[in-house]
């Protein structure tokens, strides 16, 4: 294999994995929240951006160590989620068709956050870049890859693995899945359903925040990523099956790899058409998603 081919092959794989892991993180966050509380969180893109911007502030403006800044930001999602849960989310737990109430609610939050961003961060720059987590470049054979990106990729993979293990093997994870699958039965088995709701809201947002922080570490970003990410996360959730963490994980990585591969062989716009079209076709034949219950 010539160096050129190898470089393109390796760059495709790394790009696909990098994007895929971030897509997966956000989609897992979205699907955990939708699967348990039925909350289609339209604000997930804004939360993602909030995390990225906050990471930028802490590491660039306040001069914190990037790793420390990342932890701080992800940690900050917890009080934020709690406050939102107590103020707004909790009110709708018993409302019929609450997914629609939640959708309106999160659209309101989206509007507020995007308004705040454009008059704060939007005034400072049209693009944001974090200092690298790890400086330097590693050679994968002939292909040079920034250590920073390798680190972000690794952290994303580890986070997803921890999350997966938590949901699969831990008592709380099992309770969470039980609530996804059969709320009343879970309550009868002693699961505090409201407690699980709260936990999944907090956990889901933390995961979305982690996605935002890692994205900010790996790429420069601007305020337009919010909607792109929101739509992508919804699309992944639909195809993977709402509430299915495995679905979000697999489809997220497939999305990332598709984007990377398609960008070599076809115009990336055609690629976007192709995978959104594929989504529609999958939905027509498996309306509840590929990994649905």
């Amino acid at each position, binding site marked *: 294999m010539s160096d050129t081919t190898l470089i393109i092959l390796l760059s495709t794989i790394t790009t696909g994995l990098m994007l895929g892991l971030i897509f997966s993180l956000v989609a897992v966050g979205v699907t955990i929240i939708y699967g348990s509380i039925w909350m289609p969180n339209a604000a997930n893109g804004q939360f993602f951006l909030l995390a990225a911007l906050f990471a930028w502030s802490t590491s660039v403006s306040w001069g914190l160590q990037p790793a420390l800044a990342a932890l701080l930001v992800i940690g900050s999602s917890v009080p934020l989620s709690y406050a939102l849960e107590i103020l707004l989310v909790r009110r709708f737990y018993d409302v019929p068709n609450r997914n629609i109430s939640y959708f309106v609610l999160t659209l309101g939050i989206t509007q507020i956050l995007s308004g705040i961003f454009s008059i704060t961060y939007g005034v400072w720059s049209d693009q944001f870049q974090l200092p690298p987590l790890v400086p330097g470049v590693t050679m994968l054979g002939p292909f040079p890859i920034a250590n920073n990106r390798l680190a972000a990729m690794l952290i994303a993979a580890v986070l997803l693995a921890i999350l997966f293990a938590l949901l699969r093997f831990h008592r709380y994870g099992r309770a969470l899945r039980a609530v996804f699958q059969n709320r009343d039965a879970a309550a*009868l088995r*002693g699961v505090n*359903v409201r407690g699980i709701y709260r936990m999944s809201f907090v956990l889901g947002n933390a995961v979305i925040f982690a996605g935002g922080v890692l994205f900010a570490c790996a790429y420069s970003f601007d305020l337009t990523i919010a909607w792109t990410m929101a739509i992508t996360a919804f699309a992944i959730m639909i195809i993977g099956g709402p509430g299915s963490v495995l679905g979000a994980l697999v489809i997220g990585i497939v999305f990332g790899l598709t984007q990377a591969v398609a960008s070599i062989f076809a115009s990336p716009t055609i690629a976007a058409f192709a995978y959104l079209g594929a989504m529609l076709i999958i939905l027509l034949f498996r309306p509840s998603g590929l990994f649905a219950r």
Partner: protein
Amino acid sequence: MLEISGITIRYGPFLAVNAIDLRVNEGEIVGIVGPNGAGKTSLVKAIGGIVRPDAGRIVFQSRDLSDVPAHLRIGLGISIVPEGRGLFPRMSVEENLLMGGYALASAEEMARNIERCFALFPVLAERRRQAAGTLSGGQQQMLAISIGLMSTPKLFVLDEPSLGLAPIVIAEIGRTLRKLRETGLTVLLIEQNAKLTCSVAQRIYILTSGIVRHHDTADRVMASPEVLEHLI
């Protein structure tokens, strides 16, 4: 052990359960028989805390349950197998059993109870890794009963265990329930199938349109089938 007095449940203008009194003594198997829409499932939901009654009291072991939320009732010793079996279809048989024992604090007791369930239904042991949703109807019902037993209950409430099962499987369920009676477990069995119920229970309540129409021992209900026929 369980004392229900004057329980009333409304859904808007629809009166599902109308001032029911009911009593289950320790070590006893009590059956509730009634047709569709008699209010049986609403009553179960009220015992489980899934539905809040509009009036009346439920007392379990001389403790008023009205302020006890659903998820804490299992800790008091009430274990309910709801209508539709209450399985977690995408989890394995083993995970379902672990969920059954969710309220247990000790890992030892969990392991012991799982072994007991496997002893009771060996087929579940064979299929411990299989997703619950892919089991046959009879196996699902066995799993449902096992889940209910996992929390080492004092009161075991079974809602419609025979629903949608073949007669041969129903007979098997009946055998299991009689086996449980020998262990001294207190059981409240809610059923449409009067024959099954009478073969298992000691006392029978007959429920129609949200009201207790008749209350007697199982033998006497069996002895006068015209009462049943008249009421149901």
